[in-house]
């Protein structure tokens, strides 16, 4: 996390169209190092869409997303190396063990993965050698979230990270996010629960009128 002071994610005048409907229109946001941006809003208001836009998985209909002041399309690979995205789906292969699943995904990122630390952080040490097909939904979610602790990406994009987690695990995740922010990391998260973060701003998205494009 070198040069964390320069890290800044900015969205300018973002527009996104999904299935001939405008989901996000003229949206601006900024996210600085050490800050969290919590996305709130009713179902269908575009929280997941905004996270996928920021990850580069969806294409913009208009506007710019800037990382350190430069448009992300100019250096997509460098940008992607610095982000971890947690989506709705867990991306956990049932025939691999917990440790193998975490090791593969964190191995794709630059830098040596911290597998042991990630297992400890998410309380997965006892399960490390268990094939993932025997895990419960909450345990699978923890395997997915362990990717956050295993690599050094400064930007975290989290889509409902605490879904199907129990109370203790939710607190662990809140602590993990808090520590990341304290170390100069950045978090953009769609969540309905209060994670108790100190340095967090809320971005409320509205559900746009459902008129079809001409």
């Amino acid at each position, binding site marked *: 996390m070198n040069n964390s002071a320069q890290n800044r994610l900015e969205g300018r005048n973002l527009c996104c169209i999904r299935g001939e409907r405008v989901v996000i229109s003229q949206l601006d946001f900024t996210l600085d190092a050490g800050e969290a941006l919590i996305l709130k809003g009713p179902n269908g208001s575009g929280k997941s869409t905004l996270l996928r836009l920021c*990850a*580069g*998985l*969806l*294409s913009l209909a208009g506007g710019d997303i800037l990382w350190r002041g430069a448009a992300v399309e100019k250096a997509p*690979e*460098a940008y*992607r*190396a610095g*982000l971890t*995205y947690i*989506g*709705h*789906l*867990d*991306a*956990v*292969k049932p*025939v*691999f063990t917990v440790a193998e699943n975490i090791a*593969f*995904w964190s*191995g*794709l*990122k*630059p830098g040596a993965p911290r597998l042991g630390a990630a297992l400890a952080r998410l309380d997965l040490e006892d399960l490390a050698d268990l094939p993932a097909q025997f895990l419960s939904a909450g345990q699978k979610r923890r395997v997915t979230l362990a990717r956050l602790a295993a690599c050094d990406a400064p930007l975290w994009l989290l889509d409902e990270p605490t879904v199907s987690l129990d109370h203790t695990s939710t607190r662990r995740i809140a602590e993990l996010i808090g520590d990341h922010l304290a170390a100069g990391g950045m978090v953009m998260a769609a969540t309905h629960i209060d994670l108790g973060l100190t340095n967090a701003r809320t971005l409320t998205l509205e559900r746009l009128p459902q008129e079809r494009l001409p």
Partner: protein
Amino acid sequence: MSGFFALIVRDVRLAARQGGASLLTVGFFVIAVTLFPLGVGPELAVLARISTGVVWVAALLACLLSLDRLFQADFEDGSLDLLILSPTPLELTVLAKCIANWLTTALPLVVAAPVLALVMHLPASGFAVLIVAMAVGTPALSLIGAIGAALTVGVRRGGVLLSLLVLPLYMPVLIFGVGAVDAAAMGLSPAPHLMLLGAISLGALVLGPWAAAAALRLMTS
């Protein structure tokens, strides 16, 4: 580059642990070829005449079987998003998946082909060329197939559509693959056919990952 090799290793291990996807492909290949002597009759002259074509067509269809899971499995569990987001360029990611697909499905077919050629009474002079032609031609099957697999990712019942997209593109491989073995069986040089097969594979190596990556970006966005 480490991500590239890590993905090959991961896909090969996945195939090995998921109860032998390779075995199923080879099993299909064996059964499909074995049906011909039963259907056509045991006349050796007839079998010898059609042997090369039957082995190649069965190999094409067997390769096709494995393709609809090439990206679909990763798409369904969210892995495809993460592969797109990895710092490795998507073209290299696709190439890594093609190499793993070739190692786990096409390579076993290359090994099984001579045994089946024996069943089909292929003239002895054609065996070596059959193995070489399959080794040279099958990479094109994985690489071209990846384009079809990428275009049908996320499509319900995409397997049939995939066959319609990919089989016409497999025709040149079939023509020159059969041509090489027939030429050798008739005592002619198989070299021109093998070179054309090699050219198809090299062309697919350049175009396949690039086109499949573009298709994946289109289908996931």
